[in-house]
């Protein structure tokens, strides 16, 4: 359970891990195809809270999140579906009885299991983040059926939903961007780790599966695919770790490195999992074999927080090109 506090500062009972540690952890998450709201709560929500820096709310929520007793989700319009969706952020108005939120957000990750929601809503002073209790009045969570069964997505509707404004020591957009950078590095780690595991599984299979009197991995068709995939896996790993390193250093080139990793790791995980099925042959066409679970995860990961094509464009822009 300690890992749930990986992004929570030590003073709030967490591990206070930096991007490097989180990326490393996510490589394991990807390898083991771990299900659950780790990315959405322990990374995204925790990082957003920490970046906003509301002392009171942080002191209240982060220790519980680190302890695993509180799960949070983040509802930011177009964050999870960056580049391909474009909705209108919910609106927040201050009433005598406090803040009320109105509107809807789609593609909210693991919102169904969340005890609290961090909701980005427009106010008259610009975008602000609000805390909404999971059992708040006027909050409707509609689950969306997903291709990757380990990913839970919801559409949230707010109908005069009571909320508490989270104080921010910096611009909300900046806090959000920082948290998203960390999420993208974490996701890149998951992709790199997942791709590596799938290649390992596939190489093992190619060593043991005999056809025509010899292991299929002795045939160039399989061997050469594996070699190409190794290049994908190693490149993804390099990209994810470099982004983590630069982000943890607060480097000015972290943004570019994050886009690079998001694009390279997204494509690599899909390619490796897709080719892995082909290399396995018939056995991987069966439901009971894990191969399609990894492909489903890879396809989902390649959409979350911006597609590879979106991040390629972001990368060029970060390069000034």
């Amino acid at each position: 359970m300690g890992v749930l506090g990986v992004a929570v500062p030590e003073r709030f009972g967490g591990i206070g891990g930096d991007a490097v540690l989180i990326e490393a952890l996510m490589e394991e998450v990807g390898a083991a195809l771990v299900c659950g709201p780790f990315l959405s709560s322990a990374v995204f929500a925790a990082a957003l809270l920490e970046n906003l820096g509301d002392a009171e709310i942080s002191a209240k929520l982060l220790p519980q999140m680190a302890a695993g007793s509180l799960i949070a989700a983040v509802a930011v319009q177009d964050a999870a579906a960056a580049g391909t969706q474009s909705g209108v952020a919910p609106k927040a108005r201050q009433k005598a009885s406090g803040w009320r939120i109105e509107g809807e957000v789609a593609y909210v990750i693991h919102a169904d299991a969340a005890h609290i929601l961090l909701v980005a809503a427009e106010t008259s002073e610009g975008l602000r983040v609000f805390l909404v209790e999971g059992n708040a009045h006027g909050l409707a969570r509609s689950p969306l059926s997903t291709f990757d069964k380990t990913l839970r997505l919801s559409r949230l509707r707010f109908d005069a939903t009571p909320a508490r404004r989270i104080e921010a020591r910096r611009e909300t957009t900046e806090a959000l961007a920082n948290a998203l950078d960390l999420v993208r590095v974490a996701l890149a780690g998951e992709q790199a780790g997942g791709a590596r595991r799938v290649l390992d599984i596939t190489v093992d299979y190619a060593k043991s599966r005999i056809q025509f009197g010899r292991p299929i991995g002795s045939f160039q068709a399989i061997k050469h695919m594996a070699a190409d995939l190794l290049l994908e896996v190693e490149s993804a790993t390099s990209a994810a770790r470099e982004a983590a390193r630069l982000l943890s250093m607060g480097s000015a080139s972290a943004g570019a490195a994050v886009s690079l990793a998001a694009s390279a790791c997204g494509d690599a995980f899909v390619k490796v999992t897709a080719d892995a099925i082909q290399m396995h042959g018939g056995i991987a066409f069966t439901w009971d074999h894990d191969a399609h679970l990894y492909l489903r995860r890879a396809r989902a990961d390649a959409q979350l927080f911006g597609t590879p094509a979106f991040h390629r464009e972001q990368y060029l822009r970060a390069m000034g090109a």
Partner: protein
Amino acid sequence: MTSQTPRGSQEALRDEVRAWLHANWPGRDREAPHGWLAKVVEGRWAVPRWPAVWMGRDLDDEHARIVESEFAAVGAPGAGQDRTNLWANTLLARGTDALKEKLVLPLLRGEVGMCLLYSEPGAGSDLASVRTRADRQGDHFRVNGQKVWTSFAATADYGMLIARTDWDAPKHKGIGFFFLPMKQPGVQVRPLRQITGESQFNEVFLTDAVCPQENLLGEATDGWGVLQTALAYERSAMGEAARGPRRGMGQSAPADDPLIALAREAGAMEDPVLRQEIAKVVILKRLNTLNATRAKADMRQGTSSSLMSLGKLAMSRILHEEARVRTLILGAESLLDGPDHPRADDTNFLTLNAYFTSIGGGTDQIQRNIIGERVLGLPKEPEIDRDVPFRAVRTS
């Protein structure tokens, strides 16, 4: 049938078919009435290339195609089974008299359910390494083993089975080919769930299943040769068919290509990057259609066509590419699934089901071997297990 002069005979034949269809077929593009296939057999249209004794007419290919085209013109099924009926053709070519007597006509009349018992968990690309055994016991064989990727196993009356009959012969030389009766206690069928969630295939467990001696096709150790005959019929019957997604991906004209329709609906036709991707896929599909047309023309001229064997490889690429481009078009919507999200559901189904073509019926890799060796004449790889007693061959 007596021989006729070519020119006149074609016209006369065409008239005869038309007259028969006019008298018997309910009308253009109508449903076939009950007992239709029996009637087609009766009329000697089912297998016009076959000898008269098997309800044929001894026609050459050119004349037989006239029969087929007249049936096709009104949408009537059942003609030209001498080209397309895998089961009946294989049986007629290699079966015992007793079995032919019993099954050929019922097969033509569609009265017998059939399935294929070829692949095994340990024998996929390498079919000749089957380990299902058929041991002779008096006037029958006793069959034990496991088969997989069998469609229609639950309803089939017979399965065309390859099984090992001699473990001391090299792998290709100790296999028998059988019409195994499926409705018996020794045959157990279990549905196999595919990655798409569907279950079109089954595993078949054979435990002391019994197969009469007369259901053996060819010699007991010449099953590999019979299999080649059967596979050739299968290939020529399959032709250009390939499975698409659940919805909307037929042989439509490029102008209303469902990929373009999807892109229009999703606003992707405005995106120059996607336009190039879409055009590439639409062009691949069109090229495949043109190749198929050329292949048919080649065959009609009697020249064997290298294009035939390329179709499956091409289709595999098309399906995977179309799935990829559909995903690009949908973006985050492709995260979704199920009947509430039909566009995503289609795209995801296609993504997974493309492996049906790129793996099933010979992987793309095996297909490239076949094209390289049989079409281009490139030399085979050393086959280390070719002349070794099967007992001594390394298996998974």
